[in-house]
């Protein structure tokens, strides 16, 4: 079953065409990573999925429904996002912040019920942030805060997670921690993940399928083992790469060819 269907999507900022006749099928319960050079349209796709941008032509379907016609609140019941960075100006406690993930499920006059608190607690346990529950979100480190943001997204109970470079500014431990948490949660709940990752090897490790973008089109899509090839990488990134086998999971491992010596001379 398709979680999300993008068909013949076109979009341009002014004269600059960002997406050209883009069509992607996203299947339920899988982990996808969109890869590609800067400016290839990755973030623009995510913004269309959230209805932050409206298609100039073509369609984005969430399940059976056209995203364009859905209410913001109804989208938020099905889609949660984890952005690269979150800035919070007010001293909310971690518990309140995570609890806010229930907002799309609550009516305007409704208060959070014990069930909502239970869900928040579970999410904080799963992300190992429970011990900060009564701390202010402003006192957390970047990695801790991102774990809290993931907890909030989990509390939203979405069918679909959108991760927009969620680990780009985090240390190694947190990169793995965040992606592990999201992956195991989604396996359990059969939720779908679409992530934009810059680290190609992280993407290979965590994804069921990769989508390579180039100049507003899908250049290649498929399982990492099938589409990580030297010609495709060269074409997409305009960089020579060597492909090794990752000794841990047997998946491909990409190393860009850098001639350090000639650069120094």
């Amino acid at each position: 079953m398709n979680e999300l269907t993008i068909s013949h999507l076109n979009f341009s900022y002014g004269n600059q065409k960002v997406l050209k006749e883009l069509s992607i099928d996203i299947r339920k319960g899988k982990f996808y990573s969109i890869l590609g050079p800067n400016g290839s349209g990755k973030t623009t796709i995510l913004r269309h999925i959230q209805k932050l941008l409206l298609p100039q032509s073509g369609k984005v379907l969430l399940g059976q429904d056209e995203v364009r016609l859905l209410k913001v609140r109804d989208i938020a019941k099905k889609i949660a996002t984890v952005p690269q960075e979150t800035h919070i100006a007010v001293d909310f406690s971690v518990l309140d912040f995570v609890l806010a993930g229930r907002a799309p499920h609550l009516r305007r006059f409704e208060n959070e019920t014990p069930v909502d608190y239970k869900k928040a607690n579970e999410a904080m346990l799963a992300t190992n942030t429970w011990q900060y529950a009564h701390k202010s979100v402003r006192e957390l480190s970047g990695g801790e805060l991102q774990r809290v943001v993931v907890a909030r997204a989990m509390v939203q109970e979405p069918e679909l997670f959108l991760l927009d470079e969620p680990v780009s500014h985090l240390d190694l431990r947190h990169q793995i921690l965040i992606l592990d948490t999201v992956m195991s949660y989604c396996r359990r709940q059969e939720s779908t993940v679409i992530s934009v990752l810059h680290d190609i090897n992280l993407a290979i490790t965590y994804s069921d399928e990769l989508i390579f973008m180039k100049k507003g089109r899908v250049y290649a899509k498929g399982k990492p083992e099938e589409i990580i090839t030297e010609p495709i990488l060269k074409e997409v990134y305009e960089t020579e790469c060597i492909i090794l086998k990752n000794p841990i999971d047997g998946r491909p491992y990409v190393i860009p060819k850098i001639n350090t010596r000639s650069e120094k001379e």
Partner: protein
Amino acid sequence: MMLLLLLSCMVFATTMGAADISMTDSLRILLNEVPYVGPFFSQGHIEGKFRVIVLSIRLPRILLSVLVGTGLSVVGASFQGLFKNPMADPYIMGVSSGAALGAAMGITIFAGGILSVQFMAFLGALLAVILVFHIAKAGHKVPVLPLILAGVAISAMSSAAISMLMIFHRDQADQIIFWTMGSMASAAWRDLIYVGPLILLSVILISLHKRDLNLMISGEDAAYSLGVDVEKVKKRLLLISCFTIAVVVSVSGVVGFVGLIVPHGVRMVLGGDHRVLLPFSALAGGLFMLLSDTLARTLLAPMEIPVGAVTALFGAPYFILILYRSKKNGGFL
């Protein structure tokens, strides 16, 4: 707690003024008017004129100042959340002056019934807030300094236009002056009957957005992905706020700084969570306005200081203090 403090201050304020009425007497007078328990409080020895002073002069004025303070503070708090900017305030942003200009135009150019003056005040407020917002906007943010500058510019323009109107319509100048200088002196039950419910309604409507405002101050994109239709909420809150300001200005004229310092003080003590901030701003605003107005009418009694001068006396130094602080840490608070 806070509500109790406000109520007791209101009772206390009834005793303040040129005529010397004791605490117990005014309490008796007030309680006598409460249904069911009233008859237990005899009015035997209290002079009739005191009853009139408390019930038809002081009480409406006290209620009015509480309402005005509440309205201004809640609007201030919502503006600050909306623009993610601690300096947002109906007075500084020129909204109040816009409302006053609209009202002045309603009095002079479109002279008609009372409704047209109120309606013009609303239009003036709305126009001012839209202008200021668009002048100050840089991308998705509304930075502090441009916001204040734009507000000052719009205020200055409105004041200039009001002065011109006064010159051309000398016979109505007195009426206009009332709008430009805040005062509660004209308080009467007939105003309260329609202003009270309107202000309370606006306060409730704004408070219904507490969760949206909480989500919006931690980033509009984040709020959006949690189901807040950010643009819609902004427009709705701006509309309600302008309406509130127009109503407030229509009974009290332009009173400055209340919407700035009250929410700010509450935020400093209790934090920026709008679930706490909005109701406490409402109460503290009422209290602050009540104290200011009581000072205004008693300090130099029987002469009166314009209440706008009193609030500015507190507000302006506080404003400078916040500006100085935000320059140092560049934060929201």
